């Protein structure tokens, strides 16, 4: 290994250094104290940052946990390709379970193919947790995303139904985490709780992380529907009267194709995205997640049902 100058002197220990060290500390606590942990990895930017943090936490060894992705079948192909490439490059074990399996089993009944599948993700996630007996699932959720997340602990305890009880959370003091669960229960752990969208982009820039190209500005066929720009895909086709336009857009989040809206942008590099992020006046979810706009408490309700 090359010898590097530790130029992080105390006065230049930046917010990114502090956040990174905190996240590494959290991941190592999970590895040390949980019997059968897992890292949820989707190929999106937050989970790519999580992957780099896991490398920082555990190399030169392999990760002491597998990666799991719950595939809704509504994911962007570029993101799935990145997911597979990164897992393969790192030589880590990737487990994919898909909503299709749950649909075949009958545990999910889809009413409308063109509707978002996020609400059903919890079902397959809980089935996967049961299949492998996972007791801790690390996810890349951040507190700045949404107000239900703002009140969630870093170690978020779930009962045997996978439910979050916001008024019955364990107190979390200092960096001393209570990781204990009874058999059948599990915890969700959010090592990047304290990161903001800006921190993620700055870290992607600093670490030169490979992210799916749809995060950068590109020309895309979209339709405008209810104030949002919606990408045209095999799942979303224009309704009569709607016009297909080609616009330069980028995605701020890459979730379910039917409910993830891109923003109009010409930012083609990480630095340009950082500059845009610094001046944007709309929150990440407000701009891009149509499913969170249906109710003031959408995320809170989903979390209570086992969503991470």
């Amino acid at each position, binding site marked *: 290994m090359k010898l590097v100058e530790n130029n992080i002197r105390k006065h230049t220990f930046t917010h990114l250094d502090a956040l990174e060290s905190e996240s590494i500390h959290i991941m190592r606590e999970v590895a040390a104290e949980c019997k059968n942990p897992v890292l949820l990895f989707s190929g999106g930017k937050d989970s790519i940052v999580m992957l780099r943090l896991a490398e920082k936490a555990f190399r*030169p060894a392999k990760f002491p946990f597998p990666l799991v992705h719950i595939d809704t079948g509504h994911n962007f192909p570029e993101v799935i390709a990145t997911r597979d490439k990164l897992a393969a490059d790192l030589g880590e074990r990737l487990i994919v379970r898909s909503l299709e399996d749950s649909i075949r089993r009958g545990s999910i009944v889809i009413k409308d193919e063109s509707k978002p599948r996020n609400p059903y993700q919890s079902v397959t996630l809980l089935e996967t947790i049961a299949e492998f007996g996972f007791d801790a699932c690390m996810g890349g959720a951040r507190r700045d995303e949404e107000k239900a997340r703002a009140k969630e602990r870093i170690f978020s305890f779930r009962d045997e139904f996978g439910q979050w009880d916001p008024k019955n959370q364990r107190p979390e003091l200092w960096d001393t985490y209570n990781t204990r669960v009874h058999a059948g229960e599990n915890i969700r752990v959010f090592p990047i709780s304290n990161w903001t969208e800006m921190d993620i982009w700055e870290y992607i820039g600093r670490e030169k992380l490979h992210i799916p190209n749809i995060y950068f500005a590109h020309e895309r066929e979209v339709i405008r529907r209810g104030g949002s720009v919606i990408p045209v895909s095999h799942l979303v086709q224009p309704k009569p009267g709607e016009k297909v336009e080609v616009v330069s857009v980028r995605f701020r989040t890459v979730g379910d194709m039917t409910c993830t809206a891109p923003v109009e942008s010409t930012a083609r590099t990480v630095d340009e995205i950082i500059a845009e992020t610094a001046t944007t006046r709309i929150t990440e979810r407000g701009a891009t997640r149509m499913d969170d706009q249906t109710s003031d408490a959408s995320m809170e309700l989903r979390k209570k049902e086992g969503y991470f």
Partner: protein
Amino acid sequence: MSTTTQLLRFITAGSVDDGKSTLIGRLLHDSKSIFEDQFSAISKTSEKRGMAAVDLSLLTDGLQAEREQGITIDVAYRYFATPRRKFIIGDTPGHEQYTRNMVTAASTANLVVILVDARKGVLTQTRRHSFLASLVGVPHVVLAVNKMDMVDYSQTRFDEIVAEYKKFAAQLNLHDVTCIPLSALNGDMVVDRGENLDWYKGPALLELLEKVEIDHDVNTSDFRFPVQWVCRPQTEEHHDFRGFMGRIEAGEVSVGDEITILPSGRTTRVKEIANFDGNLQTAFAPQSVTITLADEIDISRGDMFVKTDHLPPKVEREFEATLCWLSEAPLDKNRKYLVKHTTRTAKCLFSRLDYRVDVNTLERHAADRLHMNDIARVGIKTQQPLVFDSYGIDRVTGSFIVIDEASNNTVAAGMIA
């Protein structure tokens, strides 16, 4: 944002009546940290509730579960940044369970903003907040004298409050206290200085938050490294590699330093210090690193590395601590609990309950039970020795949580005397 932006965590203590939510709203609004969709959501709600102006306090409003059940969830975290610093606000709403909430939020804070209403001055709750801040060892305190607009921005009134507060604060273990007159409603001395407080020459609130010196908030002198995880790749390439991973909680360490491993007391030298990016000559708190040693010694999670020539921590199975009881189920002296201290968890029992402290008057009372929100001095025995410092010296190696083995809940927070 520059690449040398520091992170500052602070909390606000005070009630809605003191204008706490308005102050946070003002800080976020004037530092341009509120987004349009958030602003339009609270505008709609303000309108629905028949308010004339947008109520900035709604920004810190809670979840559906809270509104329906009239409860408040203890801590919400909010984020904003200026070119100099990134801030994490621990927002603890409400009066109920105040002790528990504030202790939780304060445990990771560099700074606490204690709000008083300029008309009312120093109240019982001001004393309570200050006592808790000193108990949890928050390094910096700001007394924000709010609603100065209601007392005609009077310097005399501000000076009176400051004099009274300083007299009280002298009894407490508070090191760095700054008093700022402000009006959250009008925005004076929050982000901008405004035009009404020209007689005040100190920093506005945001200026202070950006400039307060926090490098020495951690113990910089005595190296402390609790082993979190032992890395043994057992691959061809790293066949004999045995790295001890963890976060440096205090001080610094260099290659070649002689270290003692506690509790065993064995000594060896640091062979390498590494992180993912390469090998380091020196590393310091709060970096997460991997350390390899010159000798093969049996070391596991829960052990602590210290420098042999530094002030040693204590290695004991019995100690005194101040406990904040957090659980609805009261402390049962006949039961055994678990104590989690740095990376070590051990069974414990409470051998003595010395006294309970009234958080309002600081008076001590005899106690034989502890209920939620009680602060007490206790004696603890653990099944295995813990390696600790006094909380006054080190907030990491001096703190612990207590876990109820039956429910797995975190039932208390402890600070070692």
